């Protein structure tokens, strides 16, 4: 339950005066609140718990943790629907939304 799932910040925006972002979890994109990692930059990795970034994390650590959680079958929460699913499109430059 107290899982932190690492993901890559691909976009930041403000909504109702709160810093939000689109975060890529190995192909699954989610809206995530970034308000408490407010100095995060696009391309950096964050540790996300139920749609909320708890801390920044480095890239190698992010990949390790993600692979571990995938192996433990502990990524179910990413499959829960959000009210507005984000369409995912792939381009030569990477993921676009």
């Amino acid at each position, binding site marked *: 339950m107290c899982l932190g799932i690492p993901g890559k910040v691909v976009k930041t925006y403000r909504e109702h005066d709160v810093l939000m972002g689109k975060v890529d979890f190995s192909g699954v994109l989610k809206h995530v609140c970034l308000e408490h990692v407010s100095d995060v930059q696009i391309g950096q990795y964050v540790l996300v718990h139920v*749609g909320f970034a*708890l801390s920044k994390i480095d890239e190698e650590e992010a990949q390790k943790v993600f692979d571990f959680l995938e192996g433990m079958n502990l990524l179910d929460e990413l499959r829960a629907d959000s009210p507005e699913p984000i369409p995912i499109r792939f381009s030569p430059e990477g993921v676009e939304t």
Partner: protein
Amino acid sequence: MKFLDEYRDPEAAKKLAATIARTVTRPWTIMEVCGGQTHTIVKYGIDEILPPHVELVHGPGCPVCVTCLEMIDKAHAIASRPDVIFCSFGDMLRVPGSHCDLLEVKSRGGDVRIVYSPLDAVNLAAANPDKKVVFFAIGFETTAPPNAMAVWLAKKRNLKNFSVLVSHVLVPPSMTAILQSPGNRVQGFLGPGHVCTVMGCDEYGPISRRYRVPIVITGFEPIDLLEGVLWTVRQLEAGEAKVENQYSRAVRPEGNLESKKLIEEVFEICDRKWRGVGIIPKSGFKLKYEYRDHDAERLFEVEDIEAQESTVCISGQVLRGLKKPHDCPAFGKTCTPQSPLGATMVSSEGACAAYYAYGRHLDSKTNKAKAAHSAARDSSQLVRIGGRS
């Protein structure tokens, strides 16, 4: 991206286990607090590669498990109302209350929805002004910032149709309750890594000093847990009792200061009843008075609902490290994940459910077959370290 797997390297694990074996001179009992850690320990058989006189006992750190029966019944009462959209994390849906679970409420026509985040529930409230949207806000300190943000945002956006049913629990008071309980066996703790990512390590120093127990804040991977055990037994053997941070790659000593500030803005500490344990003083969060308009217990008048737990189940003793799941006569027989009797079987992170999932309720012959099947299934990515495979 480069793949590194030193946190799951079986050779490194065996070396660490050998170091632990060389370090210990007498029996020690260590509790891992977090349910995620329990899951890793049982899945990888970490407890089985430790020397026999180092015993791991499993703690109360699964919020789904310890959410008290009354609160589940309150959730069902609210979710059954025709004017309500009841939102929850997925793992709460099949937790049995006194009469049924949320899935059954849904099958009877209740609008019960799984959400990824409490912030999604806030957006649902904005999109459905004619409905009352209620979010089941359970969790330890890790989940307090997102839940606090949801309530704070709802107030800021003046969404009067959004409320939360709060059943937040806190780790340090549960550790204190375990240490104070008669017959306590725990001599050291592997502390909860992600809880400390939010709250930092400061709360654990007084517990360590007062009860003379080592507390090692520990991560969630097999090597993390073995390192945590090694650091703990080194302290125990040396007669030390201090807080150490094995999980420093994610935990700063001060935690996340912005998250702590928001928690303080929205929540205040209260007594909380834990499933299988009972009331632990000052062991939970409730909404502050300023946020009472978003308090579902008050709005739906369910504060007086009471419930009676199973008398057969020994989950209270399992949660305090006094007994193991297979000490229970009902384990794997009348109590299974499909039909759980109590706290530690209701979620995959509960000790009983983890033991059941990895075949520890089976006899040795069946167990070997299941373990072999499990090892074959997992061999592409994961290597079980302990002896069962």
